[in-house]
């Protein structure tokens, strides 16, 4: 067996023509070796003699191979060269080169980082390489660019392209009052609240008293109990809690089950089936009594007297506020109606009449101030507020046409712009008027008259239809002198307060729905809650009744906190407030939260007693009125002033 030891490249150059040198490949690399497979020789030398193949080169048997492997230390680096048919022992250099190739690395001797020779800029030549002049197109602005820009411009002008709206951070968008308007309805679904978390006992303390610490046996018992309770089908939520005592706070470690417990609670909240327990678990009967809310929590309500409106000469019987909350109108016994600007107390207008003004109200829709004086009802367009509304009212009144023959008892007459600047409509009755009340949509006007003793009481209520110009007595027979009437805020329901009772009629069905039993001797005033389920009723015997229409026909609550006759009761239209005024010179503001949940009782708490009016001839505050939007209240009194109380 022959093998050729390859020399290092440096030495091999010196010994190229030594005799031991085995002839190298003379057949050339493109001649396939298999052509010589069946010959003894391989190629020819310069003298055209055959070069004999080395004996058994590359064709050793397994035993030779094994012996070679055992004896030759360089066996691992010996490879068979097909071209020469010889075994070649690789040098260290060869191996290093192979490893380099295998690892995809460059030869460290190769100069990879040769300095870069910049052919063009390193030597600045005096003559340019290319000397063609620049094209004409390079001086002319691009047409296509212009068209493209024009397209964008047009799109921006037309509003097709909009600037990217500023990004809203969903995490930081809750800077507003979500509960600014109190709810009208409760949840539509049945709501079973999840039980609250159990509060910790003494044993959970970081420093419990010794009796709460567990022995080893007790801990074992706890563990076995836990295991015996184990149920495959159920989710494991409980962790074993072993009380521990630490002598000082700094030794308390972090509780490693904390996150897990929170997680279990989260799972409980959304995975656990809930069931409503109909049987309440009451241990203490006092728990059933709800806590009285703090006055701070009942805020806002009127507290301080802020403004006084002066100008009337006699006692002021009635007030009304414009729906915008900007104007206030007051009617007085000095036969005038004054319109005030609320914010400044400036008197905007004064209307003089012949008889004392008993009642007035602003039309909820039109710009018509309706005034009841003597036996007349006058509708005034005071031309305040929105111009459009004023003009609309003018137009509306103009296109009304009345058939005089229809109305036997009352006389409708229109007044045009030429004859009077403000008064637009006059309805004249044969008998004096006590009260007027607009329906919420502003088309019907209910009117309480004072019939003469020889007339029937059925003539005491009259309903005027403004757009039709018709008037009718809706009741054929009525018992008792009518004191006050109200329309239901949303439904076609009419409420009449006579001296002793309150009757509720359905106007479309034309039937009596309910009759409320009042425990006052003489009703002075009633009001209906803006949601329409509660009625407040004040009496001259200083009682106030609260009726819950869903509950009973008897009063839900009776208050006797006024010392003298109650003159007026009013609800706030937006906020949960009501007020009552009395001859004792006080106006008591109460908080009243009404819930649509039938099981929950209304929460009524008197929160403030307002004083300020003088008592003249045993009369003090005659009327009160809440501002339509703010928690403010106006009171008018016998001392011919109006006072505004604000929060």
């Amino acid at each position, binding site marked *: 067996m022959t093998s050729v030891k390859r020399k290092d490249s440096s030495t091999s150059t010196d010994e190229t023509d030594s005799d031991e040198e085995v002839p190298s490949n003379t057949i050339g690399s493109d001649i396939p070796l298999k052509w010589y497979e069946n010959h003894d020789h391989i190629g020819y030398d310069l003298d055209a003699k055959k070069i004999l193949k080395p004996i058994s080169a590359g064709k050793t048997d397994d035993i030779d191979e094994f012996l070679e492997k055992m004896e030759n230390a360089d066996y691992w680096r010996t490879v068979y060269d097909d071209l020469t048919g010889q075994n070649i022992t690789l040098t260290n250099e060869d191996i290093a080169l192979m490893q380099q190739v295998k690892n995809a690395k460059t030869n460290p001797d190769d100069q990879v980082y040769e300095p870069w020779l910049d052919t063009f800029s390193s030597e600045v030549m005096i003559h340019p390489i290319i000397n063609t002049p620049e094209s004409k197109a390079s001086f002319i602005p691009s047409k296509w660019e212009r068209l493209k820009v024009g397209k964008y411009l047009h799109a921006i002008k037309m509003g097709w392209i909009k600037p990217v709206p500023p990004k809203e951070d969903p995490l930081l968008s809750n800077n507003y009052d979500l509960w600014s308007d109190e709810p009208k309805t409760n949840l539509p679904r049945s709501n079973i609240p999840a039980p609250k978390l159990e509060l910790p006992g003494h044993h959970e303390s970081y420093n419990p008293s010794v009796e709460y610490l567990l022995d080893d046996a007790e801990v074992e018992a706890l563990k076995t109990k836990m295991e015996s309770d184990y149920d495959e089908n159920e989710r494991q939520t409980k962790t074993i809690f072993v009380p521990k005592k630490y002598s000082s706070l700094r030794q308390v470690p972090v509780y490693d089950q904390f996150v897990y417990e*929170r997680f279990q609670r989260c799972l409980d909240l959304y995975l656990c089936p809930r069931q409503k327990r109909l049987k309440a678990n009451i241990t203490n009967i006092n728990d059933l009594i709800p806590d009285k809310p703090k006055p701070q929590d009942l805020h806002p309500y009127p507290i301080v007297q802020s403004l006084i409106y002066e100008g009337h000469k006699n006692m002021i019987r009635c007030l009304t506020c414009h729906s915008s909350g900007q104007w206030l109108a007051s009617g007085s016994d000095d036969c005038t109606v004054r319109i005030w600007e609320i914010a400044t107390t400036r008197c905007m207008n004064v209307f003089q009449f012949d008889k004392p003004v008993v009642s007035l109200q602003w039309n909820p829709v039109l710009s018509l101030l309706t005034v009841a004086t003597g036996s007349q009802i006058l509708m005034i367009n005071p031309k305040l507020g929105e111009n459009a509304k004023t003009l609309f009212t003018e137009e509306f009144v103009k296109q009304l046409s009345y058939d005089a023959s229809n109305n036997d008892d009352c006389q409708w007459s229109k007044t045009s712009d030429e004859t009077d600047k403000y008064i637009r409509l006059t309805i004249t009755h044969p008998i004096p008027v006590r009260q007027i009340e607009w329906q919420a949509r502003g088309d019907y006007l209910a009117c309480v008259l004072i019939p003469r003793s020889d007339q029937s009481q059925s003539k005491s209520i009259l309903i005027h239809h403004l757009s039709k110009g018709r008037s009718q007595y809706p009741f054929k027979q009525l018992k008792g002198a009518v004191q006050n009437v109200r329309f239901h805020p949303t439904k076609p329901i009419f409420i009449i307060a006579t001296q002793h009772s309150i009757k509720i009629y359905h106007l479309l069905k034309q039937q009596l729905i309910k009759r409320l039993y009042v425990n006052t001797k003489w009703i002075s005033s009633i009001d209906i809650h803006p949601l329409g389920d509660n009625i407040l009723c004040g009496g001259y015997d200083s009682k106030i009744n609260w009726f819950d229409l869903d509950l009973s026909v008897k009063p839900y609550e009776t208050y006797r906190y006024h010392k003298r006759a109650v003159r007026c009761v009013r609800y706030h239209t937006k906020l949960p407030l009501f007020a009552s005024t009395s001859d004792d010179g006080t106006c008591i503001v109460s908080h009243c939260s009404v819930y649509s949940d039938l099981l929950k009782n209304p929460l009524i708490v008197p929160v403030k007693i307002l004083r300020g009016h003088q008592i003249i001839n045993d009369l003090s505050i005659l009327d009160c009125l809440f501002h339509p939007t703010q928690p403010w209240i106006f009171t008018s009194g016998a001392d011919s002033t109006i006072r505004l109380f604000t929060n």
Partner: protein
Amino acid sequence: MQKKYKKGAAVNYISRNQALRKLQLTLSDFRRLCILKGIYPVEPKNRRKANRGRLANKTYYLAKDIRFLTHEPIIDKFRQMKSYLRRLTKARARKEKTREQALRNNRPFYKLDHVVRERYPSFADALRDLDDCLTLVFLFANFPLLKKLYEPRLRLCRRLSVEFLHYVIASGSLKKCFISIKGYYFQAEIRGEIITWIIPHKLGHKNPADVDFKIMATFLEFYTTLLGFVNYKLYSEHGLIYPPKLTFTPTTSSSTLCSEDEFSDEFLASLGLPIMKKPELNPVDRIEIDQEAAQLLGDTVADEDARKKEEEAKTLQNLFSKCKFFISREVPREMFAFAIRACGGDVSWDKTMCAGASYDVSDQSITHQLIDRPKLHDMAVNRVYVQPQWIFDSINARKLLPVDNYLPGSVLPPHLSPFVEEKEGDYVPPERFGQRKPDNDIEEQTTNEVPSIDLVNSNAYLNGSLKRKRTENEETAPKITTKEERKRAMRVESGQVQ
């Protein structure tokens, strides 16, 4: 004839799989939706009827609830999110950078405002359900800011929790507090609603193994929205400026390297300084109760109780008003600063410990210093050194307890839970009497005469320079008995042993 299963339980309840089919949602989306909308399974009165006669173990939802879910706009957002993610992965795989950027800019998001309003139609409803919300928000506020947990929300949690604590401080509504092994329990009464929450011990964070943070994150999503609105409402109703601002702007000294906003946030988070109020004529908290009006309905027992309660609240609000505290660095600063400030005390700490320190340890007017180490070398004579448990015990007892038992290095009396309400026949640990009895012989010396001789003695004793005299007070302390005796007493009273 009426067909069977056409009305009643069979149609009122719907199983979970039916619900999924109806809503066309995947299970995970359905769960997310249920968490956000607060829909939970219900237990039908009769399972067999609900399942049309079959007796298989199923989860039932109210059919009405599911019908209510069908109108939810968030479902649409879930679908948008799904297609957004699909597009994004596609763009990323194709290496379309501009498209990817455009997609990211238009990432769909949903807001939960309407859900909060739906679930809590009134503010009182929201307050009633605040316990879980606060506990989870406080937990996440204490987490390290990890990318995995969506860092901005963790920051939001921190902010909201600090805001809430500031509100409790400003309104003085803290009622009870308790140091448990699990964490610090606090209880506040806000608008008549009792709210309890836990703040975990702030000591490192171990990632628990068997917890699915995705579910917690969904809860947190809703809870942060809720707490944001609640905070806003509480602040605006209490006449405070929201977001909270300090009454002064902390001057950025040259040594701080952060922006001014972050600097004031840090001051705010320290809980040591008061926050700004709205300039109002009649701030809500200063409205005087119209006593006359309150008595119109007549005096009842409930009124008497209410008055007592109010008095108690007032004493609690001003419990530490005469004290000036200094918190040593080994005491968990935040909890104690909160508890002290909520009860009207002044508090400070080492300047290097946290921002917001208003006075130094050497301040002569400090009356109490909280330390939690066995011994301190240079002690000032004119102040009391107490262990932190004294604060919590005093708050729960509604009076300043005698400091004798709480001196540094001494064996502390057991810390009892204020949440346990003993009924007749229950076992009451003997230490309980010492705190509860109003006419206890042990009366704390009023704090204006703090540098009294007693104090000097006790401090000197601690320094080792004086031997402590036995005072008479120790006679009245609960009798020390062995553990076995007490345990037996507990078992006997709780009825385990005759």
